[in-house]
């Protein structure tokens, strides 16, 4: 089931499917967040704050606006 990073629940893992257009994609890729990578959502700050994710054992914070544009697919457990 496809949804964006904001809609995803904390603690869930998902595969990145689509990155937002433009400059944000470049910056994300430079950090290792590209299509096909598995990430785990750690938390989301209230009031439209950033999302914190875990990728390859490293934590990253992504602003709300960009997180909304990242399409992911939930990995079924197991």
């Amino acid at each position: 089931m496809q949804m964006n990073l904001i809609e995803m629940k904390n603690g869930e893992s998902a595969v990145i499917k689509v990155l937002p257009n433009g400059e944000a994609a470049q910056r994300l890729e430079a950090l290792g967040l590209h299509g096909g990578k598995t990430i785990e959502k750690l938390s989301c700050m209230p009031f439209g704050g950033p999302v914190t994710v875990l990728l390859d054992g490293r934590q990253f914070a992504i602003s709300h606006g960009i997180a909304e544009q990242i399409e992911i697919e939930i990995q079924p457990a197991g």
Partner: protein
Amino acid sequence: MRILLMGNPNVGKSVFFSRLTGVHALSSNYPGTTVGFTQGVIRHKGLCADLIDVPGAYTLDPTNEAEEIARRIINEGADRVILVIDATALERNLVMALQVLAYHIPTIIALNMTDEARHKGILLDVERLEKELGVPIYKTVATTGSGISDIVDNMDKARVSGITAMTKEERWQKIGHIIAEVQTVTHRHHTLLDRAEDISAHPLFGGLAGIVILALSFTLIRFLGEGLVDHIFDPIFENLWLPLLNKLSAFLGEGYLRSLLIGRLFDGAIDLEQSMGVLSTGFYVEFGMVLPYIIAFYAALSFLEDLGYLPRLAVVFDALLHRFGIHGYAIIPTLLGFGCNVPGILATRVLESKRERFIAATLISVGVPCVSIQAMLASTLGPFGVKYVASVYVVLLIVWLILGRLMNLTLSGFSPELIVEIPPYRIPSLRAWMAKLWFRIKDFFLEATPLVLGGIFLVNILDMAGILERIGRALTPFFHKVLGLPPSTAVPVVMGMFRKDIAMGLLIPLNLTAHQMLVAVIVLSMTFPCIATFVVMWKELGALRMLEASALMICSAVTAGALLNLFLAAF
């Protein structure tokens, strides 16, 4: 020989650099602080070479200024490259590594933080990695210095890699392949620091923790600052400097030079707070009142930085700061501004767009009171009661919010969104912390102080020429009607705009009421903290933007003063 030191941000490159060259360089956890590269010389057992600390970059397809500079530097060519790779994040580090190796410059790899990798349960087959990449690899722990001399001793073993340039997709494939062959991750248990990480990202507790930490920090800073003043700086000034000045004063006798350097005498004695000379009040305020707090301030900030807490703070504040056109990282320059606006504004280089830098820099100079101003607040309003001092902070905060909102709504251009790595918490190393503190204080001396003292000199001359008196008199009716201030304040306020250090010395004897003092102090707090800020804004933003910022500053200060005057009159 020209050697480049390259790698991702946060891999320990700067610590490496300082150990290799013996020059203390700044090692920071947030991106962009080593933009504008550092150069040093390695002298070791017959090897003498220029070492360039290239700004940290995640990729040579530049996404920001630091990466552009990195690319430019390597494009200029080099004899050797020392590539620093973070063993705890091999996959990501390989992106730039492969790009660098494709330049076919003889390279040595320093595999850093192997101790942390082991602690995290990450095991690397270094021999296999050497084969894959085609260059020699040495394990290092930069913070202890372990492995660094191996690198230098074996510089001649640097090899040209077989890796060639490739497309992004080919690179991802290659990296996937290397990781599969080289890296295994085993399970490890949660440590105390790991639990701390979980808390700071928590939606509710993260914010609370942030506020608590900030409150604790400011308390500690005050405590430390006061301690330094009472036990070190005041005694030095009373017992060493003052007698010297007295001798100088007697030697110079009456005249312009003495007025300039020593200032006014009170019953034949020099008053360090009120005499206003460059060497008396100028020196005392700068080195006896501001410097101790600068030291305390940077001590606390550097600690939080090395701990790894600052990016988490940025995350907590991002949602809020976005409404004002800047993103979470602007919290760092803003906090720096509480120590001294000059490094605060310089730190806005961290922000990626001109628009953000302009907003952040303007907000800092208008709404963030530096130590000098805070000292003025304490001495002018303190006697009236703590609530007056506190209300200044409140007013400044309100101004910051409103002005930020206005700028965000009206300025064109865009502010990029927050995407940042949160480094793991690290127990700060004492050595690195002290080096950073020293470096920052040295910076303050070299960048801000000459400008402040120069400004004092200039203002003294203008005062002696009677120019400030004339400006003051011209503005008196305005001061009276709009700000509710008596005519005697006109000249002090005008002077105080350029010399915060003397402002309090000038205002105190005027016997203003609490309300009048409040208005005068607010207006002064919001205009240029000092000549140094003026100059730094010019350098960072350009003349045009600097004038815009100044106009905004003066308008807000006057508006705030006028509104405050009306508001207080109602009581």
